[in-house]
């Protein structure tokens, strides 16, 4: 029997990242740079919220967790385990696109490795989401390569967005301490460091073709804290807005 606390910590972190990233990306709906992109970005934001829901559902069915909607909308800030990276406001489209690029490549690697997870319920989910996440990374790669070739200002903005995002993105791989050790030993997944190494290789290749410099990991101060419930100043206002409708009547049936 796999340690329930440890697996809960992993699933909550993954699901909360997806939920908050999905919510942030959905804030672009109606404001995207062009109609086609607005639709694509909104649709992917919806996918992210779907990923969060699927993980909350696994926690409910397999780990005696609560109702997914209640769990998503009614927790206190401290009980969310998302990283600061996804909490940050959208800023301009360069930041949002770069975050989407870095986040989705990490997610693609994580789910690919989870296809072999010893925690059985993750296997079918990881296989199901494969195609969806493949599209997300394809979309992100196409934009990164397009904008890096679209003139001096465009290239400079993308490099600047990468520099801003990188230390935040390292927070996706915040070490999980003892719980993470247990999950690695139980072969639930190979651990944050392993995912990060594959991720760095993957994004380095794409970014260098696009002519962007990936900052050195040793020079970056990773933004940690989210996995332990310590959040940026941006999360609480987001939670208030995200749950506003739900809280008007938590028992309502939709």
């Amino acid at each position: 029997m796999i340690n329930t606390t440890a697996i809960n910590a992993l699933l909550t972190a993954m699901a909360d990242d997806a939920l908050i990233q999905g919510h942030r990306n959905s804030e672009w709906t109606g404001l995207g740079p062009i109609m086609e992109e607005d639709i694509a970005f909104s649709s992917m934001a919806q996918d992210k919220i779907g990923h969060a829901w699927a993980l909350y559902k696994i926690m409910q069915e397999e780990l005696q967790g609560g109702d997914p909607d209640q769990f998503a909308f009614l927790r206190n800030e401290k009980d969310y385990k998302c990283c600061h990276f996804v909490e940050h406001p959208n800023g301009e489209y360069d930041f949002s696109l770069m975050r989407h690029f870095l986040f989705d490549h990490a997610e693609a690697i994580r789910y690919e490795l989870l296809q072999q997870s010893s925690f059985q319920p993750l296997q079918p989910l990881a296989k199901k989401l494969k195609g969806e996440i493949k599209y997300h990374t394809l979309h992100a790669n196409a934009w990164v390569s397009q904008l890096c070739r679209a003139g001096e200002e465009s290239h400079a903005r993308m490099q600047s967005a990468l520099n801003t995002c990188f230390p935040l993105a390292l927070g996706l791989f915040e070490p999980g301490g003892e719980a993470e050790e247990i999950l690695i030993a139980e072969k639930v997944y190979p651990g944050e460091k392993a995912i990060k190494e594959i991720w760095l290789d993957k994004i380095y290749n794409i970014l260098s073709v696009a002519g962007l410099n990936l900052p050195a990991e040793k020079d970056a101060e990773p933004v940690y804290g989210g996995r332990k419930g310590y959040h940026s100043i941006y999360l609480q206002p987001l939670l208030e807005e995200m749950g506003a409708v739900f809280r008007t009547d938590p028992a309502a049936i939709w």
Partner: protein
Amino acid sequence: MNNQSLDPRVNRLKLNASGEAVTVQEGENWNVFEVFHQEKRGAHHEHVGCVHAPNAQLALIFAKEQFGRRKKCVNLWVVRSADILAFDAEDEDMFANNGEKTYRDASGFKVMEKINKFKKAAKES
């Protein structure tokens, strides 16, 4: 005169009232791509609409969300609209007499009589 358009691509062209020729920079104006949808493997790709995009790759990526996210879809094609060769609208007269040449319609062949005769003969033998 306020020439502000809701489309930033139009604003970037800096159109002015004096009617000077505008030079369009490479990449400044996006292309229109026609989108063809394939419902199942081996089926024809059918034209479903178009998307704006700076290049074919992004056109394909946009097309996937515009046209491939609801009903069944296994593949899409995109083709730059400018690469499609078509007749001029004024050449429509080439097709004008089609309606009269009904002998070219497959429905013009009267075969039921022969089929019935054959069936009858087959039954009797």
